């Protein structure tokens, strides 16, 4: 019950003060400082870290995570969670593989159908939550299992490879020899996402719904349609991630994207979003995605053992959120005083 109270409180101050506009510093400022510090630290430790090629390397390595995290941000702003994106990614990738390799359908048509698959998964997620009244955690947990299972069924448990060069180039081509195409896809989608949140009325109302579902519903926001649409978008973005993964690896894999949903949640939360909903930004998420990517890359460059990598990454996630929380509560205090 206490979450309900928190939510309505959050709704109140959100609607009264619009803190996002009034803030002296953007929400992603804390994580951004952390990212810069991390990069400075790593460039001292490894001479190979701060090179152009390595920076674009990192970009390419996190591009897919970045695409997925756009949907993740919307879902978390709404106060939901999507555990199924990794599996939906695999299922969509599997469709590309099976339709193109096994059935000889053009790879681009296959990619389009993969997006439809992602859309369907997202709509089912949203439908289960809105009309089935399942908690988002459970609905998407179920989808996580179903989609992973279907990916294994469709691919019969093994990877499928052999794609035309044009399709491989979708993510592996370097424009001018240094700018990876996958980074462009991710950046463009992120900018679109950011513009949507900032300027579209329905993008703005996402924050309101996340902060107070009942309040928004009573004030005429089409909460159900919005929820389904957000999960559908997350599904489509996961499918785009699946197409990118298939293109990048030259292989559709049933195990693709295992565990990436946790990276998505980590990136969004590091970026300053709150799991109770109502907060979050694409810029913050982009920083969160980069923190994860830089950290993995840096630890690899330094040849840190995989056991310690897990420890460090976990610690950084906790630390980033602790710092952001402290900052947010300080701001809240300052606000109540004024």
């Amino acid at each position, binding site marked *: 019950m206490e979450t309900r109270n928190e939510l309505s409180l959050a709704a109140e101050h959100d609607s009264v003060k619009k803190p996002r506009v009034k803030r002296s510093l953007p929400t992603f400022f804390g994580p951004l400082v952390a990212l810069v510090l991390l990069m400075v630290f790593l460039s001292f430790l490894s001479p190979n870290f701060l090179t152009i090629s390595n920076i674009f390397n990192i970009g390419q390595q996190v591009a897919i995570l970045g695409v997925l995290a756009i949907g993740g941000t919307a879902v978390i702003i709404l106060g939901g969670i999507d555990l199924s994106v990794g599996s939906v990614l695999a299922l969509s990738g599997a469709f590309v593989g099976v339709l193109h390799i096994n059935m000889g359908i053009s790879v681009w048509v296959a990619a389009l159908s993969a997006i439809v698959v992602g859309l369907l998964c997202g709509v089912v997620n949203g439908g289960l939550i809105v009309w089935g009244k399942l908690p988002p955690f459970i609905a998407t947990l*179920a989808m996580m299992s179903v989609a992973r299972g279907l990916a294994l069924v469709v691919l019969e448990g093994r990877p499928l490879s052999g794609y035309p060069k044009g399709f491989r180039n979708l993510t592996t081509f370097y424009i001018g020899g240094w700018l990876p195409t996958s980074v462009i896809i991710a950046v463009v989608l992120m900018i679109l996402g950011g513009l949507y949140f900032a300027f579209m009325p329905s993008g703005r109302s996402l924050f309101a719904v996340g902060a107070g579902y009942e309040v928004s519903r009573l004030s005429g926001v089409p909460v159900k349609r919005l929820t389904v649409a957000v999960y559908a978008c997350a599904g489509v973005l996961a499918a785009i991630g699946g197409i990118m993964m298939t293109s990048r690896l030259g292989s559709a894999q049933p195990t693709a994207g*295992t565990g990436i949903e946790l990276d998505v949640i980590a990136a969004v939360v590091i970026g300053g979003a709150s799991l109770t909903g109502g907060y979050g930004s694409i810029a913050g998420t982009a920083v969160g995605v980069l923190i994860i990517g830089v950290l993995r890359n840096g630890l*690899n460059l330094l040849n840190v*053992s995989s056991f310690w990598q897990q420890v460090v990454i976990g610690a950084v996630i906790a630390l980033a959120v602790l710092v952001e929380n402290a900052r947010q509560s300080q701001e809240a205090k300052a606000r109540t005083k004024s």
Partner: protein
Amino acid sequence: MKSLKHALVALAGVAALVLAGCGSGEPITGGSDSGSDGDHDSKEITIGFAISTLQNPFFVSMKEGVDEAAKKLGINLKFADASDDANTQSNDVLNFITEGVDVAVLNATDGEAIASSVEALNKAGIPVITVDRTSEGGEIVAHIGTDNVTAGEVTAKAFFEALGGKGKVAILEGVPGASSAIDRGTGFDNVLADFPDISIVAKQTANYQRSEGLTVAQNILQANPDLVGFLSMNDEMALGAVEAINAAGKAGKVKTIGIDGGADAVKAVCDGSLVATVAQQSKVMGSQSIEQAVKVAKGEKIEKLQPVDVVVIDSSNCKDYL
């Protein structure tokens, strides 16, 4: 509290659905009761085969071998996939006991965790054969499989020879702590002692996955511009490394080798992007285990240790495995 209760109920529901899904898969893989090509005293034989996971091509082809042999011999097959969960597997084995299989063939998710299941089978008087991974406890009639240490040794030797015996090499490790990763690593180390001019400059895990292999190999290439090779603990990571090498424009300069002999890897060997892949013949393991299990069921004596050879698939013989 109430919502937690709801969540638990829903979770139980999902679990039930998933289990039901697994159960319904059984008749499809189940042996042929109507098998006319088998001799008839084996028709009554029921063999339970518990596999560690089907989410990996290596075990998928093991299952192919199992299915072929089961069909050929016309036996009843109870097949169980544990999805790499030791707990699920111990439940699978308990089901075998309940169903009264004549012989249990186990491909353990974990050599330690399976021991109690083997003991339970022993108590029930059901003979046990292990495949690929053996059990750390209980009595087994036979073990069929390649030793991963040997596979590691053969791979490292083939690779270091291909590199001319010198240079900086990075190792792509499997899932940290998995017995296959530990054993293959031991095999690498054993051979490393014979090649003093090879230096290992990086050791990183890519969890046996292609996408992680790509990322990790990219990072290692950044840190070590003069690297000459990736010694990988499986094919998937090796194929990821190939992508990284191509992206870095170092095709031909940096070499890679894999283990497992998967279809993609064999193709890559033929087109020259992989030095070789060392195959543990999982399909042979699968079919051999069923043949041996039938012998045990008929009361014949069989060899306790049945090694299955590893095959080095390189440019000289890759066409035979395409």
